[in-house]
């Protein structure tokens, strides 16, 4: 009986550990703070009505309404750009509370389990 309890193979296989070429799609990679920051800023910059003359102001701590003069409609559009960039929906009651770009950044990091 005790012989049956011993696993026949002596190593533990974790998912994907034996696969060298992962098929047609890359396996999902863990995002880092830096990547999220880059992608957030990229999404905001490429929003079609982003004022080109204010590009130097664009950083995480920029205030959406004070620094850029965005109204609530603009903010909805920016959040939609972020949704498209990261591929998940941000409900309006959450995105309403975004005051600075950092708020959006924090929200995305929390949602995507980014911790480094």
């Amino acid at each position, binding site marked *: 009986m005790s012989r049956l309890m011993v696993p026949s193979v002596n190593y533990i296989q974790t998912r994907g550990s034996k696969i060298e070429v992962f098929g047609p799609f890359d396996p999902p990679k863990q995002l880092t703070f830096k990547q999220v920051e880059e992608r957030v800023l990229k999404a905001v910059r490429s929003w079609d009505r982003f004022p080109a003359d204010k590009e130097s102001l664009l950083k995480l701590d920029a205030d959406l309404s004070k620094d850029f003069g965005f*109204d609530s*409609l603009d903010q*909805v*559009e920016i959040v*939609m750009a972020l949704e498209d960039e990261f591929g998940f929906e941000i409900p*309006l*009651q959450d995105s*309403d509370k975004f005051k600075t770009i950092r708020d959006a950044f924090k929200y995305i990091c929390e949602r995507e389990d980014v911790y480094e």
Partner: protein
Amino acid sequence: MKAAQAAARAINPERFPLYLYKSILRLHYGLPAPARLMGDTYVKDEFKRHINAKPEFVKPFITEWTNYCMMLSKQLSSAGIRKGNIGKDLDSDKMEQLSNEHIQQLVELRVEADKHMGRDDFFQNLQNITENREKSV
């Protein structure tokens, strides 16, 4: 309970226009690219203009856009046009309210649009009608 609270917050009248705005723009993702460009530009422009509108104008504005949003959501799925055509024809009683100038604009628009589509049956019809009228006069 949580869902009920979320729903109660969702229909917060102050934020409803933003919901509407977002849903319309989301629905437009399913439109063909040229239609989406035109639709998005129009929706954004209209909402921008009414951002500080008086309350008596806001109500019909929101009602009409809600109707539009509901109509579109029945005709579109996230993968594109669900079936048949998108949009609907103008009601005949709405048509009656239009001024001659508006009608003329619509006719010009139709003729130009047909030109781009390579069709001229509407234009031919129009010419026939005008000729017949001239003869009878």
